[in-house]
């Protein structure tokens, strides 16, 4: 135990120095400011251009003035639509006088909306969209489900457009599919992107720091005072804090952006923007701090896995020119995990959920999402974390061993086979 403790002595100083230099780096500061400005400006700008091009929400004038609404569903649609603000200029009339005929059929859980008529294509599409929203709202009300279930159902929408004949281009029946879980998809997609950014950025920082130190030929001076493992760990932790801090700053920037958008364009504009992540809110409301803890623990494990791999890869290089080659393995694994997680989110079944929760690398992207959406239980999540922790410890051991042997190596970049041979106690690189 004392030996391991001694091998980590100096980690605090390495961490502190590396983090300070990362924060002081002009390149990093410029990148941060650019990202922050983009983040703050993006939403108000997006909302502004949407409103100018009319791509925003439908207005009263988009709907046809005379509509024949046929409600053959189990919903009280006719009375409900009259209460909607965009229907205030619409008159319900018999079929022969109507500019548009809208028929709604079906019962829980699926409905079909068919819209035809002589009104413009835009007006018919607006009517169709408006009805879709009305059906959706009524369906949710009728279901009487919990906030989480409502959120899941809110995302479960698929538009199907059969072409019956060449003339009937505006006939677009809508099928509302309650089993289609778009909320889960967006949740997985968003989380996977966060993990991907975290892994790629942090591994890149670690690889750069390791190679920079080696190529500047000052490792010998450092090794008099500190063990290789502490040198590596200090960098890994500093990069983690830096990247997590960066994400926090960007999240704050996003918050500012929302506030600016709300101040300029009103609260409705913000609601429309945040509807994409609305599925997360019930989860956080339901799970509270635990949901945040699950995400933070999972992100930390994911970060440690990829950054240690980055450190291992960086140790085999001697010059900055080799950085891209060193990043290859981390990038490949991260991208593979990300793509697989996107596929997994679209596949149903308990087996897939378990596999994606336990499989190393894939679990970095999927385990917390599978747990938070209720596909796997807590013991499976804990098992997943245990597997990831074992992987992190193994990688730390391997990295420390290889890093110690290669730290004063100066020559051609070693391949993975040579690195593993070295880790097993093969020839020393120096």
């Amino acid at each position: 135990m004392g030996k391991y403790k001694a091998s980590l002595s100096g980690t605090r100083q390495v961490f502190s120095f590396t983090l300070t230099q990362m924060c002081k780096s002009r390149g990093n500061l410029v990148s941060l400011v650019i990202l922050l400005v983009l983040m703050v400006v993006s939403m108000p700008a997006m909302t502004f251009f949407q409103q100018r091009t009319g791509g925003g929400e439908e207005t009263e004038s988009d709907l046809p003035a005379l509509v024949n609404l046929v409600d053959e569903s189990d919903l009280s649609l006719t009375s409900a639509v009259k209460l909607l603000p965009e229907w205030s200029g619409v008159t319900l009339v018999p079929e022969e006088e109507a500019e548009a005929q809208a028929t709604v059929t079906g019962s829980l859980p699926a409905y079909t909306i068919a819209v035809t008529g002589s009104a413009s294509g835009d007006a018919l599409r607006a009517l169709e969209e408006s009805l879709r929203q009305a059906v959706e709202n009524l369906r949710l009300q009728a279901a009487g489900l919990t906030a989480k279930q409502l959120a899941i159902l809110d995302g479960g929408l698929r538009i199907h457009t059969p072409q019956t004949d060449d003339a009937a281009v505006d006939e677009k029946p809508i099928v509302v599919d309650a089993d289609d879980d778009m909320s889960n998809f967006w949740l997985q997609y968003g989380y996977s992107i966060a993990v991907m950014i975290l892994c790629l950025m942090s591994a890149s920082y670690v690889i750069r720091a390791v190679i920079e130190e080696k190529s500047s030929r000052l490792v010998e001076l450092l090794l008099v005072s500190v063990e290789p493992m502490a040198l590596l760990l200090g960098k890994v932790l500093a990069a983690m804090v830096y990247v997590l801090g960066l994400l926090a700053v960007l999240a704050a920037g996003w918050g500012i952006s929302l506030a600016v958008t709300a101040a300029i364009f009103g609260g409705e504009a913000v609601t429309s923007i945040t509807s994409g992540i609305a599925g997360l809110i019930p989860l956080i409301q339901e799970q509270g701090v635990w949901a945040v803890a699950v995400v933070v623990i999972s992100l930390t494990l994911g970060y440690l896995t990829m950054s240690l791999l980055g450190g291992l890869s960086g140790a085999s290089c001697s010059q900055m020119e080799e950085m891209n080659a060193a990043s290859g393995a981390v990038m490949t694994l991260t991208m593979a995990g990300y793509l697989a997680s996107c596929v997994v989110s679209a596949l149903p079944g308990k087996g897939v959920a378990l596999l994606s929760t336990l499989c190393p690398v894939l679990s970095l992207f999927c385990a917390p999402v599978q747990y938070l959406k209720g596909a796997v239980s807590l013991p499976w999540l804990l098992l997943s974390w245990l597997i990831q922790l074992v992987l992190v410890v193994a990688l730390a051991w391997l990295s420390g061993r290889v890093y110690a042997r290669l730290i004063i190596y100066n020559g051609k970049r070693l391949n993975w086979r040579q690195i593993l041979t070295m880790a097993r106690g093969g020839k020393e690189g120096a």
Partner: protein
Amino acid sequence: MSLEVKDLTKSYGGRVVVDHLSFTMDRPGVYALLGTNGAGKTTSIRMMLGMLSRDGGTVLWNGAPLDTRRCSVGYLAEERGLYPKYPLMDQLLYFAALRGVERQEARKRIRDWAERLELEEYLYPASNGRRRAKPRTADQLSKGNQQKIQLITALIANPELLILDEPLSGLDPVNTDLFKGIIREEIRQGKYLIMSSHQMATVEEFCTDLTILHRSKPVLQGNLNAIKKERGRVNLYLKTEGDALPYIQARGITVRSRKEQEYELRITGEQQANGLLSDLMAAGITVVTFDLREPSLHEIFVETVGGVSDGEV
């Protein structure tokens, strides 16, 4: 205090690079580790400092295994470097922190060394009017000034054992004298220094004991004065006011160099030198300089390694 190196051995893929190196430093001073390129000096130093694993051998400092993280050791590596883009002051404070020097004390020591090594303008750049001065980075310094910064990193913790690998290489004469002054001061303070260098004159100036490594093996070890005494006074520097060459040749003495009436001769011993002096006096040739000397370290080194570098083997 003492430093004891016993049977230090290292091989790479069946090739022995350090073969049973042993030496002891039981008093302060400078111990020279000499050798041709590739003889194993730097590898030996790295093993002593624990950067490289040893195949065999021990390194004891005051009777206990040398642990550079706990003992007060300063090291100036042959392959020198600094973070090129980080502020110099930050780097010095970092090295001081790693050596356990408190930040306040480190700042004081850095200030002292900056004055001594004439580095103030780089470590404390003057502000330009109202604008705060931009910290200097290593890539803005000359090689000599970078070397001064590295020397500070080695000395910042005021180490008891100082290992200097080629400390004067690449320095101009002014900075060489500056570094030599610092080395002398460290010796005066009772420090233990291990020095590796190819500049024999410099090593000779400081070292009391030495090891010459050749083809990975220690081929000559001991006290420098004793080694010289053992070899005797074999160099004769002669200056005359007449042609002394016929008398030199008559005695079978080797002429190593000649410039007008100045000769550098290699003799077999004092008897031969005295014989030559008698001949010159008898011939009425005025002798201006007659200086009998022991061999220089350079000569001892070349003679020991047989004029063949390890790199050429």
